[in-house]
């Protein structure tokens, strides 16, 4: 029973991590149709922001707003300089963002060297949850990541800005003809997507070694989540993260971690096949 409880909490932790990492990709890929292969590097930059904040003697939690701001501007700049010219051209988007990911990793190596950096756990120790001892930081990560995901989802579903983004996704020309400045909304949406990735980087930083390659380990999982949850609705990120986390945790528990990865991949392929027979109708 205790083993099952630990797996449940591990699954929740994985769900929260996948959800927060995939959230930005859900905005940029799912809603805006941009295949951003540099999304992992946005996570990396967020992790380095956490390192810099802590290394500078500041409170770790300040890294969350700091990374959100830094990545918002990075994402906005990427949209204006790179992505704006290649909307609706997926092959160019893949090439451009792949190139960007290489540039960002090289920049990280120039600035921080190839050596990995350590972000200290801001809440060390463990907490007793219904008789199960679990790392306190992982519990906090579950709560904080969930709150951030819900806040961003509410922004895109309940606010005027979210309505504007949905209108642009549905019909860009009509949106412009309704007076919506689509270029500004695109910058904001891309910036928010990047900011979400940066916050994800801050949250995972204490759990891993921070180096230039950190983003590569999160990108495939984020794409799996968005594919499983469905490209066309942002709430799908939550559903996708829940399904992928449940499959990976369950298969890891009963078989092993390798088969867990295979199972998640098979699931994504099945969902891709199913989505090909459906229409691309965007909801949030």
């Amino acid at each position, binding site marked *: 029973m205790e083993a099952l409880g630990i797996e449940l909490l591990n699954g929740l932790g994985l769900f929260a991590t996948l959800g927060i990492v995939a959230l930005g990709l859900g905005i940029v890929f799912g809603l805006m149709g941009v295949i951003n292969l540099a999304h992992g590097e946005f996570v990396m930059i967020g992790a380095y922001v956490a390192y810099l904040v802590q290394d500078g003697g500041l409170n770790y939690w300040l890294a969350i707003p700091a990374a959100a701001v830094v990545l918002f501007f990075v994402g906005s700049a990427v949209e204006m300089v790179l992505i704006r010219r290649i909307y609706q051209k997926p092959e160019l988007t893949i090439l451009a963002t792949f190139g960007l990911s290489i540039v960002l990793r090289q920049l990280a190596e120039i600035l921080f060297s190839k050596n990995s950096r350590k972000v200290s756990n801001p809440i060390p120790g463990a907490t007793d949850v219904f008789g199960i001892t679990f790392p306190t930081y992982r519990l906090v990560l579950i709560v904080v990541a969930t709150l951030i995901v819900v806040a961003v989802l509410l922004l895109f579903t309940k606010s005027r800005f979210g309505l504007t983004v949905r*209108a642009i996704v*549905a019909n860009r020309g009509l*949106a*412009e*003809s*309704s*007076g*919506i*400045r689509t270029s500004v909304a695109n910058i904001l949406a891309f910036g928010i997507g990047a900011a979400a990735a940066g916050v994800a980087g801050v949250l995972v930083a204490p759990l891993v070694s921070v180096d230039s390659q950190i983003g590569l380990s999160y990108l495939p999982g984020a794409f799996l989540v968005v594919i499983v949850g469905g490209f066309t609705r942002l709430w799908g990120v939550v559903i996708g993260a829940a399904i992928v986390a449940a499959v990976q945790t369950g298969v890891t528990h009963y078989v092993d971690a390798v088969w867990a990865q295979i199972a998640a991949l098979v699931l994504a392929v099945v969902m891709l096949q199913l989505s090909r027979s459906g229409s691309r109708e*965007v909801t949030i």
Partner: protein
Amino acid sequence: MRLNATNLHAGYGGVPALHGISMEIQSGEIVALVGRNGVGKTTLVKTLMGLLPVTDGELLLDDQPITNWAPSKRVRAGLRATFQEKGLFQELTVGENLRLNGFEPNAQDAVLEQFPKSLSGRQSQRAGTLSGGEQKMLAAACALKTDASLIIMDEPTEGLQPSNVEVLGDHIDNARSAGRGVLLIEQHIALANRLADRFIVVEKGRVVEASPADDPTIQTRIKKRLAI
């Protein structure tokens, strides 16, 4: 407000569809633009709104060049358009479509009540599930009830019941009375005859007739041009 198009050329992928259209529309008048299918009427609407680039010629709004302005900037300057097709965000609700056009929830009933009663209280219905006629009326409401000074309407009565054509005609007439200009692109000649101050006839991407509505020979010429 006055919109001037001078020697306007535009097209699709290098294939020209407008071959030097010159025209003018100003506040307080209704200009009916008529022509057979495929002569470039919808291309002209898209070009005036900035959805298609001008390859030659010039567009002026109150003598200010707007040829390279984004559509949203034209809207903010006082231009509006309704389109022949896809005039609404199909996946969004009636209320969300109205909200995107500047009508917050507390103002939506007032807009819907002026159009067929069937749309009242249906703000939460997806626009794509409305009938074709209801969609046309809603799109027209979105344009006519804004504070735009010039409104371009591309075939607004297509698919409407005769009673709704009359209702829409009244709203267009009211817009003129309120000092707003309407460029009415219309196959429904009876409505154009009822409302227009001036007529423009387009053929093969060119203006071939431009006359005041009180020109005694214009009706004959239009009928001949349209082969009615």
